């Protein structure tokens, strides 16, 4: 335990920026831990990593970690990250977003980043709600669920973020939960290593906003639900659609080798004669 704490401290601005603002029991801390362990295993130094985040509870992550960080505006993290990566492709750029950040206000950027296939790692913490602003519905709020802007139940249908990323053309897509912490570590590591646009959707809980109002209990009960709902991708292949109803698949959804934007760019410049010295 002490070792892990030390490891985590190595990567945090714990003397400057703590205490943090997250509610006790929030899933964001688990995601942060998984990210740190994954980065540590990849062997990248702190200075090689740039963590870009948007605005939201999840967006606070860039305040706490001791990488290069860019805390941007709500929804635009991926576009800022695109600029960082193009300016200095040697940097390992990791982008942390909330479900609202990535798929509501920033939804357009998300699908185009996936389509463009720059070598970026996108981590989307999906807690089904806008946590920071007080529990309004997001594009992943389930049909019928309560939120501050749907006090009598939600009438829209949610996105499945990982499936959206697959369809939009991301090179690598994985989904985990904060309950399955070991798997989450592995997914993060694979996503950072992957050459191309890699997306990790992390099913998390916001017990303060979503849990309380939907009578789902506290963090423990909400994590138990994650455990019950999750099915490994490999196992899901053997199950019928009826058996899969109400379940979420976790693991690696897609891993494909696609031409990366920067490679394509180099190729086309060479073809146009601009790449020659």
């Amino acid at each position, binding site marked *: 335990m002490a070792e892990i704490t030390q490891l985590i401290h190595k990567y945090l601005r714990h003397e400057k920026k703590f205490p943090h603002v997250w509610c006790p029991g929030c899933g964001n801390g688990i995601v942060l831990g998984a990210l740190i362990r994954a980065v540590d295993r990849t062997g990248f130094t702190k200075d090689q990593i740039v963590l870009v985040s948007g605005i939201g509870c999840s967006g606070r992550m860039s305040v706490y970690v001791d990488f290069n960080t860019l805390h941007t*505006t*709500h929804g635009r993290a991926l576009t800022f990250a695109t600029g960082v990566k193009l300016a200095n492709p040697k940097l390992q750029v990791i982008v942390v977003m909330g479900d609202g950040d990535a798929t*509501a*206000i920033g939804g357009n950027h998300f699908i185009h980043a996936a389509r463009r296939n720059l070598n970026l790692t996108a981590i989307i913490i999906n807690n089904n709600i*806008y946590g*920071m*602003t007080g529990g*309004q519905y997001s594009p992943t709020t389930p049909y019928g669920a309560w939120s501050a*802007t749907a*006090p009598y139940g939600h009438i829209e249908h949610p996105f499945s973020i990982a499936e959206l990323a697959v369809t939009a053309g991301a090179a690598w897509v994985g989904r985990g939960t904060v309950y399955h912490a070991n798997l989450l570590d592995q997914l993060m590591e694979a996503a950072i290593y992957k050459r191309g646009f890699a997306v990790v959707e992390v099913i998390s809980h916001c017990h303060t906003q979503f849990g309380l109002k939907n009578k789902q209990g506290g963090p423990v009960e909400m994590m138990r639900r994650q455990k019950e709902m999750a099915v490994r991708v490999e196992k899901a292949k053997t199950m019928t659609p009826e058996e899969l109803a109400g379940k979420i698949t976790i693991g690696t959804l897609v891993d494909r080798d696609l031409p990366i934007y920067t490679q394509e760019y180099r190729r086309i410049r060479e073809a146009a004669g601009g790449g020659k010295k």
Partner: protein
Amino acid sequence: MLKYLEGSHGVSQVVAMCRPNVISAYPITPQTHIVEDLARLVGEGELEAEFINVESEFSAASVVLGASAAGARAYTTTTSQGLLLMNEVIYCIAGMRLPIVLTCANRAISAPLNIWNDHQDSMTVRDAGWIQLHAEDNQEAADLHMQAFKIAEQTFLPVMVCMDGFILTHAFEPVDIPEQKEVDAFLPPFKPQNIVDPRWPRGIGLYADPRFYMEVRYILHRALEKSEKVIKQVSAEFAKAFGRESGGLLKTYKIEDADLVIITMGSVAGTIKDLIDQLEDEGKKVGLLQICSYRPFPRKEVYRVLKDKTNLLVIEKSISLGRGGILGSDVRWSFPRTEKKDRKISCFVSGLGGRNISISDLRYAVARVEKEPVELEFLGLNPEIIAKRDM
């Protein structure tokens, strides 16, 4: 009926009584409580309206544009980054002459990230062709919404009601909430013009090539200027109907025989009035001019009330970076060039990003300008922070 309410709820209740047909918004602190309460009122059937919480402010502004273009009374609310994101549509709404009402829960803008109050957000769209009204307290914030719909629908100009984020939106104060029938008597049903309707097909927002564009902008500018009369008139009708003064172009406090006049907008007027009372007890004559209608800027009225005043102190919560105070510029421009008077106009940028403006800060500013005019000063800066960062 007098109710003890959060500022946001005073606004949401009055907006609901104005019977908007379409409400669209995206949550952003400190605006959220207004929208959440409207969602509840629609949900509980107290308000018959379409409510949609969309995926960004850009969409929210676009939804109300569309709704208004189809003849609906439409309402939205935002602040800060949200207003900045709406910017493109904000200009379209004015250009299309759509009488939309928007509440701006004034907040600072990024970067650095800050959720507290100042006026930099609404200042970014002061030139867009919207009427901008600033509320002093929660009663006025609520009242201004009734007036806003009426002004908008008479002038075919959109109206932004600005209220200080947190200081008003999250503060509890007694607010006189009218009866529905009183609101109905004050605000007649909306009679739209220039709308898309299959019975009279028409195009809105079409091309205006260089032969026409200038004229269209000129007409919009004139409409803003002419709306001064409507703002005054609606405020007078309001006073008659509800028995209290709210809105209008500007307000004054103890200005008649004042040697020094402070000029400001929004909630800080309350603190300034307290200071003025204190100074009066100490034998000093200081008055206040409060701008309620920031756009159109009531230049002639300002000149009328300040004609004989020679020492003016502008306290404003915004800055044109690289230029100076914005309200300060507007005030300076209000006096005819030909005027020979030796007038000193000082400007203090204050309260940015929620920095408290205390009576002692204001006392300091008054003492400074009693001695000499101050072109521009940031009130209450901490020199230690600046010494570390100033490049």
